[in-house]
């Protein structure tokens, strides 16, 4: 069925307004649109790693979640969601559950790339029928913008600060979607908030309704950590895609498929210069930082094209 933006946006909201996430937060947009991938008649249990999302949406005695929800700790969303899903399997066989349930886990990049990687990897390897969604804002934003293995090179964070002898984070970011794809799970995709959100919606729907384990990596900008004006979020996402910093792709049953190839690949500085965390890269004498960043983007983009048979 063709994607109908108006129809999709008018679906029942499963993350109610009134939560405490920031204006201009990509995480909230990502979550609401992943949940729009659920069929209205289906129920869901949401698992959430400790994160901005968790502490801002379920502050006792209020919850913004319309579906059942469980938060356990920082590093165990994969295992917790596995337990919920296993319970469903056995209770369904015993006739103790009515209707269709889907299982979606959300974690930030801290809870997913780093402290929760072991738990996630095992849940993927066991191929539980669940979707793990990483809303990747490229740092530990909840604890105050510390670097993670998802933080891009040269980003200014509170544990990789720019200083007299530091240009920010020295390392490039981990490619988690590729790592999960190597688990040979049925479905992996990378996406972000792009244009009419069709890419995100379709990938979420596919992830939710593919039997077995699925992983979605959603770049979700953070206005506090990236330092941009709230209204610029969609433009920043577009630039991430058109510079090929954040490629959109799927890995379906092991087959890599590119979702979008920009007609004109923009220089990465177009993406970088919109964000305060990269400000130092544009100081006179730091030109080589941008060149280095560009060469890393090019290398990874070329490798992806090869993987996707482009």
């Amino acid at each position, binding site marked *: 069925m063709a994607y109908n933006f108006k129809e999709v946006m008018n679906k029942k909201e499963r993350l109610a307004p009134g939560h405490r996430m920031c204006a201009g937060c990509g995480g909230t947009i990502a979550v609401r649109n992943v949940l729009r991938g659920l069929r209205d008649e289906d129920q869901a249990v949401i698992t959430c790693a400790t994160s901005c999302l968790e502490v801002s949406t*379920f502050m006792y005695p209020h919850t913004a979640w319309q579906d059942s929800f469980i938060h356990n700790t920082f590093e165990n969303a994969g295992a917790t969601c596995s337990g919920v899903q296993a*319970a469903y399997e056995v209770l369904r066989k015993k006739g103790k559950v009515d209707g269709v349930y889907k299982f979606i886990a959300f974690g930030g990049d801290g809870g997913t790339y780093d402290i929760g990687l072991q738990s996630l990897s095992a849940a993927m390897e066991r191929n539980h029928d669940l979707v793990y969604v990483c809303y990747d804002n490229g740092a530990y934003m909840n604890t105050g913008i510390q670097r993670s293995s998802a933080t891009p090179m040269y980003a200014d964070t509170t544990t990789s600060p720019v200083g007299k002898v530091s240009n920010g984070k020295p390392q490039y970011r981990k490619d988690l979607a590729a790592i999960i794809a190597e688990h040979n799970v049925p479905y992996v995709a990378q996406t972000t908030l792009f244009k009419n959100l069709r890419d995100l919606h379709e990938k979420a729907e596919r992830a939710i309704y593919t039997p077995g384990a699925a992983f979605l990596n959603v770049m979700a900008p953070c206005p506090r950590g990236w330092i941009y004006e709230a209204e610029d979020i969609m433009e920043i996402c577009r630039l991430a895609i058109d510079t090929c910093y954040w490629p959109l792709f799927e890995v379906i049953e092991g087959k890599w498929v590119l979702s979008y190839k920009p007609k004109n690949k923009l220089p990465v500085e177009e993406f970088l210069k919109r964000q305060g965390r990269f400000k130092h890269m544009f100081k006179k004498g730091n030109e080589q930082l941008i060149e280095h960043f560009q060469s890393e983007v090019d290398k990874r983009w070329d490798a992806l094209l090869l993987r996707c048979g482009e």
Partner: protein
Amino acid sequence: MSIRDRLSGNEAVAIAMRQINPDVMSAFPITPSTEIPHMFSTFIANGQVETEFIPVESEHSAMSAAIGAQAAGARSLTATSSCGLALMWEVLYVAASNRLPIAMALVNRTLSGPININCDHSDSMGARDSGWIQIYAENNQEVYDNFVQAYRIAEHPRVRLPIMICQDGFITSAAVENIELLKDGEVRKFVGEYCPDSYLLNGKQPLAVGPYAVSAYCMEAKRAQLEALKNAQQVTLAVAKEFAVLSGREYGLFEEYRLADADYAMVIIGSAAGTAKDAIDKLRTEGKKVGLLKIRLFRPFPGEEIANALQKAKVIACMDRTESFNAQCGPLGAEVKSALFNARLMPVVINYVYGLGGRDVTVESITSVFEDLIEIDQTNDAGDKYRYLSLRE
């Protein structure tokens, strides 16, 4: 009619689990509890139970998955030992705070380091303040009986807390003893069906579990949890009473052995109680008034009842199978002395650390403790109140 068998402690627990037929088991192997998931996996492979087994990649995930499953509405369990329990430490608190009646078969083993696979109680004692109910066993029969009673205590509406059923690594877990089993149907009927009020997969009423609680709520949550834990004491007794009708075997909060008229009392946990009973029988034939209090329920700690049972003792030995590194007492010593103090009882209490890392406990070593107590009474000189038993010079 009970079934007579010869089983190791691990086999006895695995059979209790099979008879209960829980919904979800998540586990990761660690000596000496590994046999439990082994045997249980075989029951699953042979279609003897309907349980979903989650072969997790760590004990942290074992407990995390059990939390997810139990919150979803499934009766869940795990088994572990030593460092496995230590790795779960963070999530033990979450299980208790979320009031999830998960059962754990804990086979006590020392914590690293140095790495050692044998028994002491440093693992469960390290987790004693996590909000779990803790029940200890002397022998294989008790382990089996305690596990059969576990869910009845944990799931009781006035309790709803996770429960740890502890036994001594190798000493009971691997040793084969004569045992009386209940019939499968009897156990299933006794334990009953798990019917939670609120759970994630309740289509009529969604549930949110694991909130962020600000200072205005966090303290009240802890206090409510304490009330539930305190309720576990009466529920443990009530369940034991029903169990006695079924099995003919009686259980309390603790066991008193020749304690009523004893001047010299020992308080102990676990398998060493059996050795102590032999030592006591021998000393009694010599006219020595010695007795034993064996802890069954350690969390909640039945302080008033224990102080009451010890009120006539002149000198008491508290036997701790762990080192607490506070340089004055072990966990059992601290609890017993606190209970005595609250009851305004001031006997001499000597705290012994014994059996660490599987150090042998013998009738002779236990006898030497009672001889110490008698000497202290006769000389009126307590000497060092924190001692190590059977330490090599």
